[in-house]
């Protein structure tokens, strides 16, 4: 008989031990095997993809990266596990009504509730866009990371490291001082989520406010019109500012230097 592969993520060791005990207890009714466990969100990102887990028991309150944001990033995996949230009390459920629609256990967890949640996870369809949208609505703030699925691996890029985002055809390029990543997300929704972090300088480009060092006037010539461009910290690249965005962008530098 096939055992259900479960991954446990909780920052408290006793809580993980308790879940393992319960999984062993319900073994007669529902056979499971624990294929991995992690004490922090970033560890989950590292270990879960290779574990072939079918179900993730995920604590909502974890250091570094919270359970809800973590779940959003895991959804990009090709074989994303079904996620069952576990939390110490339901204030989060009240705050994030959408979460109620997802599977949800309160600590201390009862064996029957755990069995029911696992069975539901077994029969449920793999996480779809509907699921991702619900998670996005359940999140109380902007993400701290962008996630990129690479083969069977997730790369997290901290939002704070991004210098600019540029839309090109179907993809958006994230540029950090270390390199480039491609994500599939409309620039408009990124602009909305991170309004206080990025400013639009051009129809196809958002720039990190904190990275702006100044502006340069480009004289133009040939087919190019004279225009302003943004000078950024951490990259020699200059990004053109559209005439339409210039009034907004030039106000970003507090002392108005150019």
């Amino acid at each position, binding site marked *: 008989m096939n055992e259900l592969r479960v991954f446990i993520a909780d*920052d*408290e*060791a*006793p*809580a993980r*031990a*308790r879940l393992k*005990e319960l999984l062993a207890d319900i073994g007669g009714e529902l056979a499971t095997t624990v294929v991995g466990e992690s004490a*922090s969100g*970033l560890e989950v990102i590292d270990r879960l993809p290779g574990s072939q887990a079918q179900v993730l028991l995920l604590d909502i*309150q*974890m*250091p*570094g*990266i*919270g359970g809800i*944001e973590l779940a959003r990033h895991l959804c990009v995996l090709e074989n994303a596990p079904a996620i069952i949230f576990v939390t*110490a*009390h339901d*204030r989060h459920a009240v705050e994030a009504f959408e979460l109620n629609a997802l599977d949800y256990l*309160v*600590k*201390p*967890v009862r064996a029957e509730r755990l069995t029911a949640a696992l069975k539901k996870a077994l029969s449920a369809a793999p996480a779809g866009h509907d699921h991702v949208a619900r998670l996005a609505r359940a999140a109380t703030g902007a993400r*701290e*990371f962008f996630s990129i699925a690479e083969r069977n691996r997730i790369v997290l890029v901290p939002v704070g490291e991004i210098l600019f985002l540029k839309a090109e055809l179907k993809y958006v390029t994230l540029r950090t001082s270390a390199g480039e990543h491609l994500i599939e997300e409309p620039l408009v929704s990124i602009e909305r989520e991170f309004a206080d972090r990025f400013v639009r300088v051009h129809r196809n480009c958002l720039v990190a406010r904190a990275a702006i060092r100044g502006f340069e006037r480009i004289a133009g010539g040939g087919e190019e019109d004279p225009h302003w461009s943004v000078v950024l910290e951490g990259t020699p690249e200059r990004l053109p500012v559209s005439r339409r965005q210039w009034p907004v962008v030039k106000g970003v530098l507090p002392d108005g230097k150019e």
Partner: protein
Amino acid sequence: MPSIRQNSYPEALPDFRNLGVTARALIAVNLLALVAALLAEPDWNAMLDAYVMQAARFEPPLVASLVLLYALTPWLLRFSYWSGCVLIVAVVLVFTAATHVVLGGFAAAGLVRSLVLAASTAAVVLVYLRLHTKAYSPALAEARLQALQARIRPHFLFNSLNAVLSLIRRDPQRAERTLEDLADLFRALMADGRNLVRLADEISLIERYAAIEQLRLGERLRMSWDLDSAPVDALLPALVLQPLLENAVYHGVEPGTGIGDVLVRIERRGDRVLVRIENPWLEPGPGTRAGNHMALDNIRERLMLFFDDEARLESRVEGARYRVDIEIPYRSRA
């Protein structure tokens, strides 16, 4: 049992050993004199002259009375409120009469006039101090106290219960000890918060609390205790230290990804008791928790209820550490 309730309206005489009371009496009397001068003289300069003239007459008995009342405080507190008030007015009258005799011809007003003025001023100050006590009376603060006690984070309760559940099979003895610690903690939380407790009891409470957190967080929580010179017989309002330690763990250790060092240091310096609780300061960001300073404000308020202006509570970020300092006067049951 000493309790904040003993200070409650209307039985409590002002405590003249308290800096706040003394300062209020001084300021009130001088303000009254200023107002009197303002009423008597139409001209600003003349008004100031009148005030200075008066000051020569009322400051000596005022200061002398406050000094004597400071000395008499333990004796004075044995009397009922009203007899105490009579005694206080008597002290003021004696010093006023003495000043009158010493200054002799300098004083324009007659002796009786001075005595009536002194007695009414003393009465006004006593009424003011009584209103002040009433305004901060524990009866009014009680609701807030109860609110604070109900405030232990559900997060902590459920996680602790969960941790105990995980121990029952593996380590039944430790599970028992943890449940006992939890029971003690909740007994203290549900006790009458107006009572004063010995520092020794409060310390054992936070040690139990720390033991539970230790079980949950394991090596992520590294407690260091510096209690060797803690005055264990000092009295303080119940549940002042536990919420601070809970804050330290909740904000400084749990959201962090590394090891969190938490320091508790309690010492006596002269007639002051100094408490310091320190935890790592985590830059606001992923996973950190927003604080609302409710616990700090509440504790400050409770310290003030009992120690008035002689207690101090400060919190600040220093380098990578968040630090709360409390200073209270050393008082023991003896």
